[in-house]
């Protein structure tokens, strides 16, 4: 197994894809965190004015306790993890496209070990992408946000953990989808369309009629993993948020209709396992012609 893991690592490091995709990942994560961080900071600045203060007193909230950067972090992670999704999607689909899958299977004792080695390596690369995303987001937030509005140590840690987890799961989801579709343009189009357009469109409709469903959808659940964590962290710090504002908080965090962060994680783990397992089974038994 060690030999095959080494071979799979080499497959990644001997082409330019890993850093070709890592650069936009880092840029998007950093840029989004920077922009959203500034926006959140400006928003809280606005609330700091005398008139807003009066309104806050009436409403019974205290924006001085609001760490809105949690939302910027969650949103940036959600967007940036589309890149590890694509990275994973290429793992097997590209091997089918270039037909290197033939040599991969010929040089492995069996397909189970070949696919297992690939899984191990892509989990590791999902984590690498996740860490890069977290670092880039953190830098963007540190630059854009006033120091007294930064996340707490526990907040940083919690979001970093779910961020890396989301990245790993997105990678595996991609690996499975690529194994099922087996066409590079096909799988990328499908995934990007689904995660950016189809489900977001569906969420707009579901948000009104059946918000509870959203938390069970792939994008809804993976966003819930980070979004619900951010909302939870925010609400923990800002004790003065009235219950009627909580839905708004969740919406801002990108976790409308989402379950608790750990439940969301489990739901998306289920989706990833389903897609990944399907891809595995289809590759395991397929005739390589």
């Amino acid at each position: 197994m060690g030999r095959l893991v080494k071979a799979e690592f080499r497959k990644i490091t001997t082409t330019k894809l890993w850093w070709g995709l890592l650069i936009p990942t880092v840029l998007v994560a950093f840029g989004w965190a920077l922009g959203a961080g500034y926006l959140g900071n400006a928003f809280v600045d606005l609330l700091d004015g005398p008139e807003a203060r009066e309104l806050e007193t009436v409403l019974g909230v205290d924006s001085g306790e609001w760490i809105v950067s949690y939302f910027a972090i969650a949103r940036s992670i959600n967007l940036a993890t589309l890149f590890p999704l694509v990275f994973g999607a290429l793992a097997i689909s590209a091997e089918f496209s270039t037909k290197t899958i033939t040599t991969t299977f010929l040089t492995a004792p069996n397909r189970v070990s070949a696919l297992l080695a690939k899984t191990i390596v892509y989990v590791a690369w999902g984590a690498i992408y996740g860490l890069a995303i977290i670092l880039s987001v953190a830098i963007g937030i540190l630059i854009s946000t006033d120091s007294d509005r930064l996340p707490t140590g526990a907040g940083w840690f919690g979001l970093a953990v779910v961020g890396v987890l989301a990245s790993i799961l997105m990678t595996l989801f991609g690996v499975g989808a690529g194994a099922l579709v087996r066409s590079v343009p096909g799988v990328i189009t499908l995934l990007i369309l689904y995660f950016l357009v189809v489900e977001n469109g569906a969420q707009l409709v579901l948000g009104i009629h059946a918000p509870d469903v959203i938390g069970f959808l792939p994008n809804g659940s993976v966003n819930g993993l980070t979004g619900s964590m951010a909302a939870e962290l925010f609400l923990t710090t800002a004790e003065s948020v009235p219950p009627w504002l909580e839905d708004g908080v969740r919406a801002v965090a990108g976790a409308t209709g989402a379950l608790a962060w750990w439940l969301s994680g489990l739901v998306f783990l289920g989706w990833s396992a389903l897609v990944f397992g399907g891809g595995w089974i289809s590759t395991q038994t397929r005739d390589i012609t």
Partner: protein
Amino acid sequence: MHDRSGRIVVNNISKTFGSIPAVQNLSFTVEPGSVTGFLGPNGAGKTTTLRMILGLVNPTAGTATINGCRYHQLGNPGAVVGAVLEAQSFHARRTARDHLKVFASAIGVSDQRADEVLGLVGLTGAGDRNVGGFSLGMRQRLALATALLGDPQVLVLDEPGNGLDPEGIAWLRQFLRGFAAQGRTVLVSSHLLAEVEQTIDQVVIISRGQTMYYGMLDDLRNSQRSRVLVQAGDAQALVTALGEQQITEVSTLQDGRIAVEGATSKQVGDIAAQAGVALYGVEEERVDLEQLYFQLTSGQYAAPVQHQYSQAHGQVPPPGPPPGPPPGTPPGQPPGGPGYQQDPTAYQRPDQGRTPWGGQQ
């Protein structure tokens, strides 16, 4: 574990894609120390058969083993079998050396071996170039280098001559012969007999997914002796005169001509002159390998053709069980039951069940 015999055994293997039978009940054995040609027209099922041997395609029925094991029971198959399957099996943006290093680590050989095989196939200078810029011939060489990484005992090559220039083909021929001379096994497919005729010892000829011939190439070559076709004024007198000269392998064709085996046209003419028999036509009939191959495989796309020889000889299919293994097959090695040499009943007329090499059995 495997028995290290270097023997490939294909036993009654069949593959159906959907409703299309690609390979039907194919059996043959490939022995170490020789180069076995796997011949058939395009679409005959060669690639599917090779991929079944290599565990890439699951047979619908039957088994294929290497060293007594199925491919995925070999443990580290890359160190036992090397395969050259198609020229496109590369990532275009990976260098040749990196490609080899990837699979060197998969097989568990050192990176130095990657450089060795690059040298072996004459690609040392191109090692750091992306494979995307390679010519078809260079890709074939790289595919062979990949196959050789694990210093395998068995080599399986699917149409390796494609894209090679004449020099490359000559080099490959020499390489494969040398490889087999070390007691290793080579199975090489081609749709052109001429391409591999000088390389191979043994041959498996398939058409429409069925075995047409399996045995030594020389036996196929010798299976048909040249005949002299004579139109004589007095056929009976000529036959008698020939008999007096111990030339007895004579038969009468439907058109009244006499077919004489084991004699030259000059001998026949001299004997006829001495016997005072008038000859109206003498024709020396030669059978070359290419023609035999064509006859064996022509059924694939052409309409059923009458077999000129079987009919001329007036022979009927031999009764009883199918013939035994061809000469040269080591005893005790079942060539996979009765299927190793099938009568192509699918398209041949029943009265022509006898194929031209049948006389050798």
